[in-house]
């Protein structure tokens, strides 16, 4: 979303920059010489650094037209749309275009043989900051200018204070002006004026983060900390406030991580709980049903790309029924062809499902290939938003959590509120008695197997934005899902939910303390100990034999 806006802003900026291609208007002092500036951008790292730093320092006084021009050149350098022919730099419309315009003069020229410089990391940071500064001052829309400001905030130390003041006075949008003032205020931490410093400390502590804590802590070595009691108490109060906020933020992050891992575990295990609970079939192909769901999602994406590109962003939602039906269909076919002959032989069905899993993996590998599939990531599943202190909510995980909640609701409704659910529960509790009462248990088995496979297919949809999708992806989930099902108690959705939450949050809590490897070991050992005490798991379905 932000990226799109930024790009739009860039296009507008370029168009606007192009309309300004008049002879360079001279600023009062230190005009930006276009030729040498463009040549420096084509130079080595040192030359780039020097020119861009000089530009940043001059940006407080330079004319808006000059800044817009430089901004366009810098943006082109970032996007590798700057082609260098010796000393002259050409601006291209897109990377590798055959023709461009000379950056300094605006005359069109073929770009054949041009070299597109690759920015080193240090130069990239600097060029990003400078182009952010240009966007903040000369961006045509509020969004473009706000995007510029957010780039500047990442490296506020490199921005001269005078520039921020100029940008604040030139800004017309009141909201953006207020955020600019706040940024300018917090940039004054080392100002000689004590009052401004206190204001800066307050401003920094109002946007708490680990980085803010480090910036404030650095002030403890300042001379004023020992001599000025007002400064000292303000700093101590601010540090305490930031520290508290950061630890709350970290606590929230742990909760969120636990919840998101649990939601993945739950989705992978929900279908298995039904299949294992109802039929006692240890289905080792459950991971492959997840994979089929993910591949169905890919198929939906490709169909939409061809037929309705405008709706491409909605492919994850459109894939929900498709993935469910695809996995359910494969599941029902497997039940009808293989498993129904093996119901009285659990060991055989275990081996048969393992064979099915190998067959599905290799079938997909032959048909589609083993590379990771390429998904277009709509804005609702990419990036994240900083919510509080250092706590970032990532959209793909939030999507998975919402999806898991919906899966849970769907499962409960089907099990508790539909005739099929009633049949499934009856057969789970006492197969023979249910058969005596006229329930066609074979049919229930088939539908339940299809339903369980379909739930795995849904998990595949939710996992697309989080994990890599390839034929072998299912193998990652099978062990974890069995752990969840066995711990939760065979055949209960509530047990599966509680077990997923427990395993997910235990992993996340132990990981920072002892590392990810030990976390797995400790969780597994814990489960084994628990099952020694309660072999039936957390919630056991009462059965009559």
């Amino acid at each position, binding site marked *: 979303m932000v990226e799109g806006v930024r790009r739009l802003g860039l296009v507008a900026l370029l168009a606007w920059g192009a309309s300004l291609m008049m002879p360079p208007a001279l600023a009062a002092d230190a005009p930006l010489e276009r030729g040498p500036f463009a040549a420096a951008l084509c130079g080595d790292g040192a030359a780039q650094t020097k020119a861009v730093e000089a530009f940043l320092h001059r940006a407080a006084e330079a004319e808006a037209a000059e800044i817009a021009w430089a901004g366009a050149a810098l943006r082109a350098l970032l996007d590798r749309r700057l082609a260098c022919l010796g000393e002259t730099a050409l601006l291209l419309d897109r990377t590798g275009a055959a023709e461009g315009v000379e950056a300094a003069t605006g005359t069109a020229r073929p770009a054949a043989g041009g070299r597109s410089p690759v920015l080193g990391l240090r130069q990239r940071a600097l060029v*990003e900051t400078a182009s952010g500064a240009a966007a903040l001052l000369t961006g045509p829309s509020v969004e473009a200018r706000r995007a510029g400001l957010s780039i500047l905030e990442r490296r506020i130390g490199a921005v001269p204070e005078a520039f921020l003041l100029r940008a604040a006075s030139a800004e017309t949008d009141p909201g953006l002006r207020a955020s600019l003032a706040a940024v300018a205020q917090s940039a004054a931490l080392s100002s000689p004026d004590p009052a401004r410093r206190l204001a800066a400390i307050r401003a920094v502590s109002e946007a708490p983060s680990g980085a803010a804590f480090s910036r404030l802590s*650095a002030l403890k070595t300042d001379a004023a900390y020992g001599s000025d009691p007002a400064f000292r108490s303000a700093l101590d109060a601010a540090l305490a406030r930031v520290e508290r906020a950061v630890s709350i933020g970290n606590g929230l992050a742990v909760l969120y991580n636990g919840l998101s891992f649990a939601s993945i575990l739950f989705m992978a295990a929900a279908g298995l709980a039904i299949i294992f609970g109802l039929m006692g079939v240890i289905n080792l192909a459950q991971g492959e049903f997840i994979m089929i769901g993910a591949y169905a999602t890919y198929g939906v994406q490709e169909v939409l790309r061809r037929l309705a590109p405008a709706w491409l962003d909605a492919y994850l939602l459109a894939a929900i029924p498709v993935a469910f039906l695809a996995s359910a269909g494969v599941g029902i076919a497997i039940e009808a062809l293989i498993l129904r002959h093996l119901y009285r032989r659990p060991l055989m069905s275990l081996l048969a499902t393992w064979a099915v899993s190998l067959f599905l993996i290799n079938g997909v590998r032959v048909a589609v290939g083993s590379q*990771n599939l390429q998904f277009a990531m709509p804005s609702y599943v990419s990036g994240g938003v900083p919510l509080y202190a250092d706590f970032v909510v990532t959209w793909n995980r939030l999507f998975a959590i919402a999806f898991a909640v919906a899966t849970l609701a769907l499962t409960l409704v089907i099990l508790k509120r539909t005739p099929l659910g009633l049949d499934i529960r009856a057969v789970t509790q006492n197969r023979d008695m249910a058969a005596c009462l006229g329930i066609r248990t074979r049919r229930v088995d088939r539908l339940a197997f299809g339903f369980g496979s379909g739930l795995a297919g849904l998990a595949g949809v939710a996992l697309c934005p989080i*994990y890599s999708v390839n034929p072998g992806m299912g193998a990652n989930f099978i062990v974890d899902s069995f752990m969840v099902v066995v711990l939760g108690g065979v055949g209960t959705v509530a047990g599966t939910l509680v077990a997923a939450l427990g395993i997910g949050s235990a992993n996340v809590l132990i990981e920072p303390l002892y590392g990810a490897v030990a976390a797995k070991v400790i969780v597994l050992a814990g489960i084994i100990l628990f099952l020694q005490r309660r072999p039936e798991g957390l919630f056991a379905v009462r059965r009559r034999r």
Partner: protein
Amino acid sequence: MVEFTRRSLLGTAAALAAPALIRPAWAADTVKLGCLFSSSGTMANIEGRLNHVVRMAAEGLNAKGGVNGRRIEVVTSDPASDWPLYAQIGRQMLQQEKVAALFGCWTSVSRKSVLPVVEQNDGLLFYPLHFEGDENSKNIVYVNSPPASSVLPAVDYLMGAEGVGAKRFFMIGSDYVWPRTINKQLKAYWTSKGVPETAWREEYVPLGFSNFQTLVNQIRSFAAQPGGQPIVVLTVVGSSIPDFLREFANQGIRATDVPILGLDMVEADLEGLDTAPLVGHLNCWAYLQAAKAEANTRFLSEWAAYVKAKSVPFSADTVIDPMVSAYDSVQLWALAAAKAGSFDVPEVRKAFPGLSFADPSGYTLTMGAENNYVARGVFIGSVNEKQGFDILWQSPDAPKPVPFSPYG
């Protein structure tokens, strides 16, 4: 082409009991090369490509009349990312298939498990990955670079003024021998440069791990602490790499804040990722797809044509260093066998010193008399928007390999 699986292993074992009559008579005018690359498990997406490259190289040689008048036959297998299985299949290939040389392994743990097998049988294994060094077996040809000519130049670059002046390091790796040894050497290297121990952190995850939320949170709080520019030294392997990168980008960290040096990161790991928020992260290899050399253009088009002709299930436009190194391995073996006029391992080994081959990277590979290492060039790549790497820096020539690290 013979496919090896667990099942066919059993089959071959049974066939062994039968009289040797079933051995094909045409074996006289062919020579067999064996591949040990997984096409299933966590390494499948990247290792699987190498089987096809070896076949392509062999076909190229066959088209020119083979080696020593014999056609090359390639035997492939699937060790399924299961380390002991590499040794088992390797033994099978050497003893029963009588392959002249093995080409295989990606992870160091798989090489370590094949090592005793090739030593006992006096076989020859060409290993196409850059790795932790500290090993020199007469039965293994180390076609890619030890740390002194791959990792250390890249870390130096990042610590220097030209890079970012890195002062603090977050090491995160998969839990096995390569990441642990690399990190041990790096720590000793930093100590020798006067970097204090408080400036680094070390974390390991199980192979195939994918839930990187907590670790990326930790990296963010590490980066927020004072003490200078932080970087991430990433030694996770396989499918963990794209999963880590995705989480890293989603939590809003950019390369200009905390750059990642991905030591096992190749073009293929970026397939399926939106790389716009990842631009600027680094890797270091002896070959990058963007290498400017005529041999590279030729290799790229040869691979694209091969993928199309054989409908290979991998991308036609993605070529990664280990693919080129596997290709180089076959060429080096062919050169040595031709020079020796024999396929016997001791003879072929004697022919190694003085071999040279102009490979797709644009450097000339050479082998010396002191060890079984190959001198390669050094590239530092920077992720671009188009799921590839731009060349940020490359060495003026191919440095002489240093097998045993003075650090750690």
